């Protein structure tokens, strides 16, 4: 496993509010796992915990077999040589006063085993820009002179400079136009094949995740509600939340009326409900069916679903028949 997370819990510094509540997941080398969820789900926090930007409360994070969650300097060193991140906002993720070339040289120089002569670095910058499809002339450009798509390419090039094996992609196409998004998604897929990269992708956009990822974890209020191969999770979802999310995604050939609309706001991590965190909005939960008080008393655990492959697990007391899409 390239990335292995066990019972990870994170709360924000200076507060007791638990934003990530004991999650576990594995990403095999060369694979792509997508973390999907709404605001407050904790998905971005998981990403930040993996790269050491926030300290976990408890639990372990292993990258390529080495535990990095504790934050020791050896762990951080290992982390930096194996893992990099591409951020959401292309405008804020590039240094405003460094040219593309300077930023890439800087990123390339951190690798101790790459020769640092002027010529070698120049070649390395070449290679990186080539990889992401940026023309040579962009070397002297500043970030503000580039379009959103171009900036994301630079961000990807920079992330690839230290030759990482694991890339965390945090909503990398959320700020881009759809046609540009398609180009970046295709680029990411190509790079993965070419460089044998492992991806952990975070997004709220289910269709994008379905395209990019081979496995999916659906998060809601800090816990994973459903996890499995993308085909399984999207094809035969077992959790009512997953079904509701999929239903909410606009699709061609459907009109407004033939769908259930999830009412209510996404819950607040500071005000965590007892039992299942989704119960206040769940269309088949205690609000709609008073007999289902188990949802109030007991937090459902992830349980493997029988019919599908061994990886598909759902955390629900009344999980849906996975062959039946209609709630």
């Amino acid at each position, binding site marked *: 496993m390239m990335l292995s997370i066990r019972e990870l819990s994170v709360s924000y510094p200076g507060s007791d509010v638990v934003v990530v509540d004991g999650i576990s997941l594995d990403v095999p080398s060369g694979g792509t796992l997508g973390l999907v969820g709404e605001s407050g789900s904790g998905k971005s926090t998981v990403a930040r915990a993996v790269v050491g930007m926030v300290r976990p409360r408890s639990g372990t994070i292993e990258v390529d077999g080495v535990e990095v969650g504790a934050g020791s300097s050896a762990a951080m060193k290992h982390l930096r040589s194996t893992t990099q991140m591409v951020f959401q906002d292309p405008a*804020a993720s590039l240094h405003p006063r460094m040219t593309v070339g300077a930023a890439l*040289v800087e990123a390339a120089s951190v690798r101790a085993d790459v020769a640092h002569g002027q010529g070698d670095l120049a070649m390395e910058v070449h290679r990186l820009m080539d990889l992401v499809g940026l023309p040579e002339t962009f070397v002297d450009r500043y970030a503000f002179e580039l379009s959103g798509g171009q900036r994301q390419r630079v961000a990807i090039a920079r992330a690839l400079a230290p030759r990482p094996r694991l890339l965390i992609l945090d909503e990398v196409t959320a700020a881009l136009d759809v046609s540009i998004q398609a180009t970046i998604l295709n680029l990411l897929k190509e790079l993965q094949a070419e460089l044998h990269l492992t991806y952990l992708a975070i997004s709220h956009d289910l269709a994008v995740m379905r395209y990019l990822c081979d496995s999916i974890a659906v998060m809601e209020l800090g816990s994973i509600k459903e996890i499995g191969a993308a085909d399984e999770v999207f094809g035969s979802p077992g959790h009512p939340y997953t079904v509701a999310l999929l239903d909410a995604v606009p699709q061609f050939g459907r009109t407004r009326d033939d769908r259930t609309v999830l009412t209510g706001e996404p819950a607040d991590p500071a005000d965590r409900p007892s039992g299942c965190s989704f119960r206040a909005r769940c269309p088949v939960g205690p609000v709609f069916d008073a007999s289902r008080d188990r949802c109030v008393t007991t937090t459902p655990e992830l349980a493997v679903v029988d019919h599908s492959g061994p990886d598909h697990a759902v955390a629900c007391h009344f999980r849906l028949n996975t062959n039946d899409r209609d709630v």
Partner: protein
Amino acid sequence: MSATFGRRKQWLATLLGTPTGIAGVVLMAVLVLLAIIGPPIWGDAAVKSDFLRTLLPPSTSHPLGTNGSGQDNLARVLVGTRLSLLMAAGSVAIAATIGLVSGALLVTVGGRVQRIGATIIDTWLGFPSILLSVLIIAVLEKGRGAIVIAIGFSIAPFFARITLTSAASVVGLDYVAAGRLLGLSRWRIAHRYVLGNIIDSLVVAIFSMFGQCLIAISALTYLGFGGARDGIESWTSIDWGSVLNDSVRNFRDQPASVLGPAIAIAIAGVAFGWFGDALGRSLNPRLTVRSASGRSLRSSRASASGGATANASVNS
């Protein structure tokens, strides 16, 4: 492929790009020149007493008249340039050093220490600078050095504050996180990523504070602090504040003499402010760079054809 990855040297053009920028640069040059040549050229006229020619009104040989000791007022103002500028510069340097370093340190350490530090700075900032300076001077020996230190110390929190807030706003941004993730050293992050991005506002602050320092120092020397007027006079004891003191004392007889130091102080403050603004602008690549595609945010002379072909040939 070009081997230069750095900035293009457009900053001179930006520096001189606005009317105030040009004025600022010119005035600064004049002031610095005066500071250098003032004492050698007019030093004698400034200190030579002539009790037969006291309190003369403005004339061709004494454009601003003479003071109570018969010394030429204009000469005194010109000679005073050096000391005034040096003292103000000294204060700003002290203030900026203390302020920037403490602000930067607090941001690097972060957390509770930063919060406590910020409170201390705010309290410090709340003290009226003149009062604080007087207190400090009372502790140190008299003399102009004490004034420089005192004003420097009392203005320092302003720089600390500005560094703290600018740096704090930058530190949370994604590109800083990206830099850390790359494993760049803390020094490099602090220097290139944080400081490098707030440098233009710091530069502007430094130069604009200069005027304030100048006024505060002149106020103190005007009030008689800094021990002067005893023994042998030279350029080391003449600054605009003490000249102003002179002029005010002789105001009833010689009202015109007040103009000299007052205007000098005002001009110096404005000159440094304009210069600082222009310098700050020139350090911001967004305002200086003319890109290959002809797109510059300052210039609207974007060449249309150049822009279109550059755009069309590149995959977004």
